[in-house]
């Protein structure tokens, strides 16, 4: 029986987008299960990826660390994974967008019709635009048998994560432990900066989280765990991967700075998710440096290890509190430098 005092139980919604991120999140689930023997009910999970590359437990990645039986418990459940895909005939769709058909004209804001017309794969092709379009296309996917869309699952998850809500109730009744704080629910987005799906989905998912939280009157704290650097095996595409990572980091930097920025994600004609101000409360980097370079299993395991400490350890909370004070310092410095004087407390 695990010593539950070592753990910190917070209301957290973990969402991973793309292959590397889902591998990290599944490893994280396996490590939690090995430590606790269960996945805390106050946590919600969602794995998002293209249907051509659905997230599966990486059982052969760390066979000496994760016993095979653990994967029976760590694999996503049916309501914890949603797969994305674009229409089969993108060329025809592009023609309609080009022609200004009212029901699809919004697509032009995400992917130029000329580019869409060329699409014939089931993947993001390292282009964030295709991921954003796939997210928008699947946001209202109500086909029979598909269950709720990723957006519906996010909505349900956030609803269950309200203070005293379903997630906390199940934690108390099943584990006899309570969530230790009354903070807003935490949304943790995991993405690989060098892949099309994780790169393209990170900001839209953050926009959705902020937007849904605001609509429900339930603010959320949004954090991102960004895999970056050469975390994939060498394949000759390293420069291109770093380039798209640079694009994402510029966008994240803008999103973290906040200010008067307004972010939006069109979901269909006349419908979009929007939010204002700071998109992320914190972004953590997990860069494949040194011997982690081009060592995929080591890089994702390292990310999962750090995630486990950060989001499950009680001791991490104490460290985080002291770091918050330090993190505030540059904002104060910036304020000082722009105003030309020390802040006026009066």
């Amino acid at each position, binding site marked *: 029986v695990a010593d539950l005092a070592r753990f910190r139980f917070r209301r957290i919604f973990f969402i991973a987008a793309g292959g590397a991120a889902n591998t990290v999140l599944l490893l994280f689930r396996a490590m939690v299960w090995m430590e606790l023997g269960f996945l805390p009910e106050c946590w919600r999970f969602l794995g998002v990826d293209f249907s051509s590359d659905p997230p599966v437990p990486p059982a052969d990645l760390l066979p000496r*660390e994760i016993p095979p039986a653990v994967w029976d418990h760590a694999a996503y459940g049916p309501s914890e994974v949603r797969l994305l895909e674009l229409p089969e005939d993108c060329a025809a769709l592009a023609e309609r967008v080009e022609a200004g058909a009212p029901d699809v004209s919004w697509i032009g804001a995400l992917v130029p019709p000329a580019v869409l017309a060329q699409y014939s794969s089931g993947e993001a092709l390292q282009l964030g635009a295709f991921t954003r379009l796939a997210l928008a296309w699947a946001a209202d996917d109500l086909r029979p048998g598909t269950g709720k869309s990723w957006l519906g699952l996010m909505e349900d998850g956030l609803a269950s994560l309200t203070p005293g809500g379903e997630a906390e109730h199940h934690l108390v009744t099943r584990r006899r432990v309570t969530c230790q704080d009354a903070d807003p629910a935490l949304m943790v987005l995991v993405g690989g900066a060098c892949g099309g799906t994780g790169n393209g989905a990170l900001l839209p998912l953050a926009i959705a989280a902020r937007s849904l939280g605001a609509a429900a009157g339930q603010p959320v704290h949004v954090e991102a765990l960004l895999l970056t650097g050469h975390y994939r095996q060498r394949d000759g595409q390293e420069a291109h991967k770093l*380039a798209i990572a640079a694009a994402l980091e510029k966008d994240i930097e803008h999103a973290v*700075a906040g200010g008067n920025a307004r972010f939006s994600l069109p979901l269909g004609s006349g419908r979009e998710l929007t939010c204002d101000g700071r998109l992320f409360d914190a972004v*953590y*980097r997990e860069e494949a440096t040194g011997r982690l370079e081009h*060592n995929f299993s*080591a890089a994702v395991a390292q990310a999962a290890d750090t995630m486990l400490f950060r989001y499950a350890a009680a001791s991490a909370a104490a460290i985080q509190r002291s770091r918050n004070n330090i*993190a505030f310092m540059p904002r104060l410095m910036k304020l000082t430098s722009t105003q030309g004087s020390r802040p006026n407390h009066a």
Partner: protein
Amino acid sequence: MPDYAKHYQHIQRLVSLTIAPELPDAIAAVVLLDHLSALAAETTLPATAVAALDPVSVPVFRPRDIIAMALQAEEPPSLGRLHALLDRRFEEHRERRAGEDPGSRVRAVRDAMPAADPAHADVWAEWGRHLAAIRDRLTARLQEASALADQASQAFDSSHREAETQLANYRRAAARPRAEAAWWKILRAGGVWWIVPALIAALLYLIGQPALRAAFAGAVAATAVAFWARRLGDASANPATALARVTPRLCAPAADALATWFELREETAVAAAGLERLAAISNLLRPELEAGTAITANLASIRQILVRHLDQVSEGPLEEPRPGLVRVTGAEVARALAAGANLSSPDLSLVPSRELPAAELAPAAQALLSHIRSQLPEVALPAALAAVESLAGGRLLLEQYLRMLVASATSAARLKPGTRLDRSLCPEMLSIGLPEGASSPLVPLVARLFPQAPIMAAFRPGRMEILYDIANASRDQLRITEMAEDAYVQATALERQLWHLPRRYRGLHGEPQPDLRAV
């Protein structure tokens, strides 16, 4: 001054040192192997039970004593009667010995053994070997004694015939008139030496000296009579007494052969009876013997599996399955930890008492390992590291691995060459988490190697966790950013448009999206 609006709050990395999952199994394997070796070394049969099983420990039949006593009688029995007398005594002796209950010996064996303890399977198996050895010895002895008895029987027959002939002669001689018998005896018993005086007498007779002839003949007769009178004593006066005195001498070779034959017959009978008794005892002990043999065979096979298992354990004492994770492992460490495990007598009751087929041996070995592992105290990281340090060169190796681990943690952020962080704004922190926190026995080691690192309680039990984090490091200060920017500027406008959030692209580049109608 860096632009602190462009920052990531934290770069954080956690690396750890822990115990390899296979180490507890390896310790259990070492404990089990040690125990099996000790069992094998202690396979000694209880002395009292061994004595009880000894088939020679029975009263000895003494045919020579009986023969000597019989021949001392006033009327010594004939060899035939002596044979019959020995035969009767021998049968009585054998009946006394045959009345013994094999169950009493089995009880002695069982009483001497600890109650149904599989740990003594080797002793039971040793009983099986001991009984087999006795059986072999008795069989050989039976064959050898039977062959010798046949030879003794032939020797007796030969001696018996000769003795009977001589005795018959004596009896006849004793039955004739005294003078005739005396002269006959003189002539017969005198042999060739009487030819000399006879020839002298004949010569004297021929040369015709009557006085000399008469004197010589008288002297010879007187000497002969005096000799035989001394030799036969009063045999001529009492023939029965004379026979009683001469019979032992005449019967001696036959009696000796008879005694030898009876001794060999006893040996044969003892060996045959011993074999019968062993068969009965083996039958009565069969459950224990078969179980002991089966368990011993199983343990021998399990021992081989355990040896192979230990051979497959990582070499150790430290391994790095991936950067950021170091483990204590290896058979050497397992042996060092097993020495202090304080589990002197593992319970082997899980070993089935029937001989296992090959397919069931590995699961049985695993079950034993798991069982023994559950009896062992949990391996604590300080003890495991102490075991590493106790090995030759272990201390130096441990320090190297720890430094390497810390290097893995602190390399989480690679700065651009020439970049120096403003430590007042971007502090680095290296914390070491130990089992039991500041009260851990590992504190002196950590304090010596990483004197500036604060010590905290590790999140995961049994781990040393090394947490590195750096706050407020700007993206522009990172080496990877420089490389990524170089790649980014090589991209086309269309690529960048497809990478960025649409509105973000316009913000970055101050231009509308490219006109793609020409694409």
